[in-house]
């Protein structure tokens, strides 16, 4: 195990903090999600550390409740996107031939439209309910996972050990499980971090546009939108949820950079 640099420690700490908010947010929150405690945008006090929001609700409590929606939905979408993209990508790499051609062309076609535009088209047709949101983002995102899994699978499939396993008569499922997955694990974990960042920003962005997670649920993107007027009076209210979004993104990026650092070094850095 190589030494963990301080930037990665900061990243891990940020992720741990957010995980705690995801798991225990409502328990830690001093007030309820919908409790009205005072006037709009009341300043911070000893009881309300970040002040009140545009409807007079406690900002800190809303942030803690919002973690469940913002992080939970993106995590579900990333997991789903990997469980669709990975097997299909490995399958395309192992089988080759028409399976590969059909899947790759399909993915190329979907990728030639910007993700946000595709998502808006689907949301227009189906409306923004939570399942629609998660499945849409996951499927659009799985095209990226498919591409990476396919390239990794192809690289490993031509190695001697994979060749030997195939000559032994092992099936495709065994090859994926025992040869490809363990050897592709490190880049895939880093990719998971990057895909999570992307879906997280994407969900927050859709909510900011009013097309993502719908009220009454608190979520960070929607909170930025709701509190946005406050900034015109010089209040920091919308900056708190925006900063929460930025902080988690930075944290995950720091960890991903650390995970990837060992692999990119031989190609030119530090010579």
């Amino acid at each position, binding site marked *: 195990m190589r030494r963990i640099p301080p930037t990665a420690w900061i990243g891990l700490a940020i992720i741990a903090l957010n995980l705690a908010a995801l798991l225990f947010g409502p328990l830690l929150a001093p007030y309820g999600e919908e409790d009205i405690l005072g006037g709009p945008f009341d300043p911070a006090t000893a009881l309300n550390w970040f002040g009140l929001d545009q409807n007079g609700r406690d900002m800190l409590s809303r942030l803690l409740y919002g973690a469940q929606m913002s992080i939970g939905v993106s995590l579900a979408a990333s997991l789903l996107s990997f469980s669709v993209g990975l097997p299909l990508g490995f399958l395309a790499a192992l089988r080759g031939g028409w399976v590969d051609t059909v899947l790759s062309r399909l993915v190329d076609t979907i990728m030639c439209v910007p993700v*946000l*535009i595709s998502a808006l088209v689907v949301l227009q047709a189906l409306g923004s309910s939570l399942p629609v949101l998660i499945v849409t983002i996951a499927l659009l995102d799985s095209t990226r996972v498919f591409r990476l899994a396919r390239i990794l699978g192809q690289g490993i499939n031509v190695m001697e050990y994979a060749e030997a396993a195939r000559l032994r008569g092992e099936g495709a499922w065994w090859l994926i499980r025992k040869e490809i997955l363990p050897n592709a694990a490190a880049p895939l974990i880093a990719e998971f971090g990057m895909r999570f960042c992307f879906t997280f920003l994407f969900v927050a962005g859709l909510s900011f*546009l009013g097309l993502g997670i719908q009220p009454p649920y608190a979520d960070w993107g929607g909170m930025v939108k709701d509190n*946005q007027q406050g900034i015109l009076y010089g209040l920091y209210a919308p*900056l708190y949820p*925006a900063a929460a979004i930025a902080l988690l993104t930075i944290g995950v990026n720091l960890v991903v950079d650390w995970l990837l650092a060992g692999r990119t070094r031989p190609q030119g850095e530090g010579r």
Partner: protein
Amino acid sequence: MIPLILKRIGLGLFTLWLVSVLVFAGTQLLPGDVASAILGQSATPEALAALRHSLGLEQPALVRYGQWLWGFVQGDLGQSLASQQPVADLLWPRFWNTMFLAAYAAVIGVPLAVGLGILTAVRRGGVFDRAVNILALGTVSLPEYFLGLVLILVLAVQNPVFPSLADVYPGMGFAERLDATTLPMLTLLLVTVAQIMRMTRTAVLAVMDSAYVETAYLKGLLTGRVVLRHALPNAAAPVCNVVAFNIAYLITGVVLVEAMFNYNGLGRFMVDAVAKRDLPMVQACAMVFGAAYVILNMIADIAAIALNPRLRHPR
């Protein structure tokens, strides 16, 4: 080189056609009936049938696709369901507003980013390189609305330099328009400059390590000439790609920035159309965004072909 470029243009047209199929399929074949979306839950079956007939919905999907595409090629984008006006009249003014904002950001951002990328690559490991890299890492991870909010707070509220809302209206003077769109432009700039700069730096660094750059230095050429004449042309292809990618981002990522600054552009227009579930407007917007994306990528590839010395002088 010419056959290569023609081939790329052909591929671009094919991709455009694919985009039209995707947009049509996405809006028409997904569950969710247009007629009941317009009339709402309480509509009578007769009213629904009449509306379906007047919209031509009982025809096969392939026929409707043909009619839609043919109208589109001729510039007829259909009728808005919500306002009963032709979509084209509503869409194009907003499209030009978006193009104005994206162009404003690109004209300032691209030269700035490429210049910074080259400078940091030449001064690799120096203080300037490190400072710019840390700044770039910071802005790359921050979402647009965070940057936008900070810019509004600092440059519009605490120090009223620029207006906080980007109000534009027809007949507005060029200088006023620039002033009104400065804050959204700066937001877009911060996001894109960092990315283009980092890619340019990587691309130039990769070339700077090659044998012919070393030869050029050993011949006694000055750094400026080595970088501009020997290194840069060979780093052009990846730089072109990332520039195009970022301009394409400018055109779609502009959606968030437009919503943030209440700018009357195509992005906000499309979001409103999605919220109202106005099918023809969403289709038209998606096609325009998709086409802009495809065309920009095509231009980048052609520029990369035209700038690559090895492709320009084929043996």
